[in-house]
């Protein structure tokens, strides 16, 4: 029973980790808490849904035991691209004019407004009822004694870990990745080192937006696609980013899995109705006891 709850937590953690990375990255580079980030997860899920629907005519079949095949993977890639574009458009229209004002609260409140608009735009286009990538019902299989998971769920966890490793290599081995870390560390010094900060900010949205899209699709695959999914994930995402240490990418991954696991394990002792409160309680405890988070640097 506990092992099963742990496995469920890891599956939820995969979505949270990918979402929290984008949140912490934009927080670090742009220096504000972006409440619209959750909506990027929703948009990623819906865009992939639209593309998957468009490809549905193809004769491709699912990969082995998975419920989906190439159409959804292509849809994921296209959705990641468009979600990045959406993030850049929101940045251009909403955040960039406010960045000049240097009032951080204005950015946070504006991101909240952007989040509401993005969510309601989804309802206008796709309607309020839940969507699914596939109508197949997957059977959970025993993967370990006492632990059952669907092939899709295992795929999500593995692909999330792969994306984290790719991101790590990108940030530590490539010129652009190092420039991103440099801006997060010290934007003025990056600028006088010759880094074109504005360009790198666009790429930050691409990375954050793509990972958000992947997180959204993973959530859609393992739970369902809903207009308010991103909004509902926002609190656990912030909890994950803060727990890991805001600004720390590895902290966000760790935080995502810890929050996911803690939420699902809580079901063993409290009513599932209180599950969303777990992330909230962890966030308050971290802020009280260790505001810099697990892997964050004390300022």
């Amino acid at each position, binding site marked *: 029973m506990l092992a099963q709850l742990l496995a469920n937590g890891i599956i939820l953690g995969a979505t949270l980790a990918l979402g929290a990375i984008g949140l912490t990255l934009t927080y670090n580079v742009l220096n504000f808490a972006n409440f619209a980030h959750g909506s990027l997860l929703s948009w990623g899920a819906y865009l992939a849904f639209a593309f998957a629907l468009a490809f549905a005519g193809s004769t491709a079949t699912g990969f082995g035991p998975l419920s989906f095949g190439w159409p959804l993977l292509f849809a994921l890639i296209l959705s990641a691209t468009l979600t990045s574009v959406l993030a850049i458009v929101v940045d251009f229209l909403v955040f960039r004019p406010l960045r000049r004002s240097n009032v951080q609260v204005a950015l946070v409140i504006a991101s909240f407004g952007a989040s509401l608009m993005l969510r309601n735009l989804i309802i206008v286009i796709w309607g309020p009822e839940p969507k699914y990538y596939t109508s197949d019902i997957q059977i959970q299989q025993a993967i370990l004694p006492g632990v059952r998971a669907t092939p899709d769920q295992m795929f999500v966890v593995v692909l999330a870990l792969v994306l984290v490793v790719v991101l790590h290599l990108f940030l530590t081995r490539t010129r652009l990745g190092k420039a991103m870390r440099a801006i997060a560390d010290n934007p003025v*010094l990056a600028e006088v080192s010759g880094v074109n900060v504005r360009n790198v900010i666009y790429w930050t949205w691409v990375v954050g937006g793509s990972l958000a899209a992947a997180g959204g699709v993973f959530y859609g695959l393992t739970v369902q696609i809903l207009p308010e999914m991103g909004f509902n994930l926002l609190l656990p995402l912030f909890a994950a980013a803060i727990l890991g240490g805001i600004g720390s990418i590895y902290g966000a991954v760790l935080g995502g899995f810890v929050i996911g696991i803690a939420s699902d394990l809580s079901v063993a002792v409290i009513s599932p109705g209180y599950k969303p409160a777990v992330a909230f309680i962890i966030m308050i405890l971290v802020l009280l006891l260790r505001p810099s988070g697990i892997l964050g640097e004390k300022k």
Partner: protein
Amino acid sequence: MIGATLQVSNLVAGYTPGVPIVRGLSLTVAAGEIVTVLGPNGAGKSTLVKAIAGLVSVFEGSVFLDGADFAGHKAHTLVSAGVAFVPQNENVFRRMSVQENLEIGGYLYRGRIKERLEAIYDLFPDLARLRHHPAGKLSGGQRQMVAVGRALMIAPRLLILDEPSAGLSPKLVGMVFQRVRAVRDTGVTILMVEQNAKAALLISDRGYVLAEGQERICDAADALLHNPEVGELYLGAKGGLV
């Protein structure tokens, strides 16, 4: 390598429009010279060099680099023109390793990064040993070496230093100025702001003393060292610095 000639004329600069901190200042640094800018706190020394480096808004005037006007250009465009700037505080990427700090310094120097890294490690052998350490964990002196090393990665033609000796022990101050001189001897033009007037003037060719955003004295370094007005400014006593 031949250093750049810097010519600043009638510069008006500051953080808020209508509130100039540098108020109509002109200054020249000839190729291969070391020029020090002195002055009491609040004289606008830091704002002056930040404006030249493209970090502070220029309201009026020009910043000529070998004859081309760069006034008001973004900092990263000045880097491609060969201008390197070492800020006074927060001058390393704390969470990145020494080597990554240098690599970011050479961000625009595509291709020949390895060669430049070797050149910097030759100049600061301590850094080669510490290359994988996070810069934030280093001592003050080592951090200053990283900061200067990062700036030198682009093989600059003009190096601007904002109080390179701030917060260092007297022994390290001597070492820093000795390195600054060694850098000049490779042909780099150097403009620096310093509180440590005596040590800075001893390695400088010329100096400017600012007051309230304007030039008060401009003279050869030797003359400034013996200038009673400068002595009074820094020692509070009549007589020169030496």
